[in-house]
């Protein structure tokens, strides 16, 4: 037996389809919180894989905010997606410590191996590749996160493994 905590990875097929009812349910789960906007947006993304545009007026009404305010918050933060991501999400750290460990070469290799540019979802919808600014793994750089799974000292072997994972 094992105590402690584990963070599950895997973006695969764990999202629900958006319905206004489900959206309203998520909102009401958070109404008791002070400053509920970000927790609601996170919960929406957790449920649907992105924050549907239709959720904005629902959130605004429930929190007594204007739609512009909710829209402004949602678009300010990089985390919130406006459309579903690819089946796999690969994030590669491009911050200084990873650069010091050869990260610029590594990130280009990842992009090539996945045939996907940074900030884009491949046309077949199989993978989204994103830059990330430090995962706190700067002592075992360069680093990446694949569907929630952390990888340190990213090397050619790991890149091949990522590419294989993303073919599935």
């Amino acid at each position, binding site marked *: *037996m*094992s*105590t*402690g*905590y*584990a*963070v599950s990875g895997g973006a695969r097929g764990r999202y629900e389809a958006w319905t206004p009812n489900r959206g309203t349910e998520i909102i009401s789960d958070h109404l008791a919180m*002070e*400053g*509920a*906007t*970000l*927790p609601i*947006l*996170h919960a929406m993304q957790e449920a649907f894989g992105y924050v549907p545009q239709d959720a904005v007026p629902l959130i605004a009404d429930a*929190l007594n*905010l204007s739609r512009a*305010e909710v829209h*402004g*918050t949602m678009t*300010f*933060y*990089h*985390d*919130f997606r406006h459309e579903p991501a690819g089946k796999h999400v690969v994030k590669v750290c*491009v*911050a*200084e*410590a*990873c*650069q*010091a*460990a*050869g990260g610029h070469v590594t990130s280009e290799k990842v992009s090539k191996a996945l045939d996907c540019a940074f900030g884009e979802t491949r046309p077949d919808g199989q993978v989204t590749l994103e830059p*990330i*600014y*430090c*995962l*706190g*793994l*700067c*002592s*075992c*750089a360069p*680093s990446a996160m694949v569907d*929630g799974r*952390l*990888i*340190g*000292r990213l090397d050619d072997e790991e890149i091949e493994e990522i590419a294989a994972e993303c073919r599935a």
Partner: protein
Amino acid sequence: MSAFKLYVPGDAAAVALGADRVAKAFEKAFAEKGMDVEIVRNGSRGMHWLEPLVEAVTPQGRVGYGPVKAKHVAGLIDAGLFEGGEHELRLGDVEKIPFFARQQRFTFARVGLVDPASLEDYVAHDGYKGLKRAVELGGPATVEEVFESGLRGRGGAGFPTGIKWRTVAQCPPGQKYIVCNADEGDSGTFADRMIMEGDPFTLIEGMTIAGLAVGATKGYVYCRSEYPHAIKAMNVAIKAARKAGYLGKQIAGSDYDFDMEVREGAGAYVCGEETSLLESIEGKRGLVRAKPPLPAHKGLFGKPTVINNVISLCSVPFILANGAKAYADVGFGRSRGTMPIQLAGNVKYGGLYEIAFGVTLRELVEDVAGGTFTGKPIRACQVGGPLGAYLPEHQFDTPFDYEAFTKIDALIGHGGVVIFDEDVDMARMALRHGVLRGRKLRGNARPAELDPPAGWRRWTR
């Protein structure tokens, strides 16, 4: 109780190097052999080049093996790891490894040692002694104790924590908040992450003491979304503390109330700046507020608010438990106590190294870190993150001290040291990060923050 106990770090750095796979492989192998073993997912001891570093509890104490891969598991069991058996990965007592033995672990004393999910383990290792003393002292004397310790904010600016707390304590009674800045956005820093993952109860205790000291009953930890393991560990610990009466009404049988929760950031670097962080918790865009008013007077939801970095708050339980003097007795000049330094980038022995102020950069990067991973000469070190500076070799003898760093136009910041070898193209780094800064500081950053940063100025001079 199981017959055997094995520690396999659940720290994100260890996990990134394969610790989850190692834990699974052990679990499977033990099941096959019918061995009853408790696997504890502890924090990291901070020697990241040895991760995953597992520790077996033997009759002679804990014996470390590392770096372990799943393929080593069968061999380790055959070697008799619970007897401390010989194996090529055997490290012996990990606390005797020079990198570890030379440290002064005040704040990180329990990280890697305890089970981060167990409140009992925390209490068994001196946990909640600080809170007990704070309850005895009462609010005002607790504030003074923190002031006397000389503790300065570890989030970057080095502002005396005691003065910040005094300001909030002096505000009229009413709703007040303790906010913990766990945004840790600077590259090269991971101390906040490590302590939240490895010893989350220390942060809970630190925030509880802060609440008691200034009369706040509610706390928020604003943690960046890039740290899912830290968020998980904090939430597990908060639940356990609440269940045991260490959070909620009349904490630990005292007259004080305090509760707290974690709020997740959403990928905006600027939200590490304290006023923009407050805006973000309130549910708004992370725009920097004009000061004054100070957050201490008008902070979260317009109420008096203490906002401190994770390490600042995690230093408090030690100070209360051991007395301000024990903390202030170490250090250099007006920089008292210890600093958890993070050795990163192109580094041979990277990890977390807690030591009293006054250590020089040269000792750190040459002796402790052993130079670069690539084996090439060090070209420069970036200290203090993107707002700090790139220091060339001729400045390596500068002692770690807020004032000494200011004198050379540098910053200690959050204590991150990123090592670069001679292959680095400094102009490219500077330019690139100038671009990054522009992107990440989305929203209306203050003009001062958009000045060319020190590192850039230094290298183009």
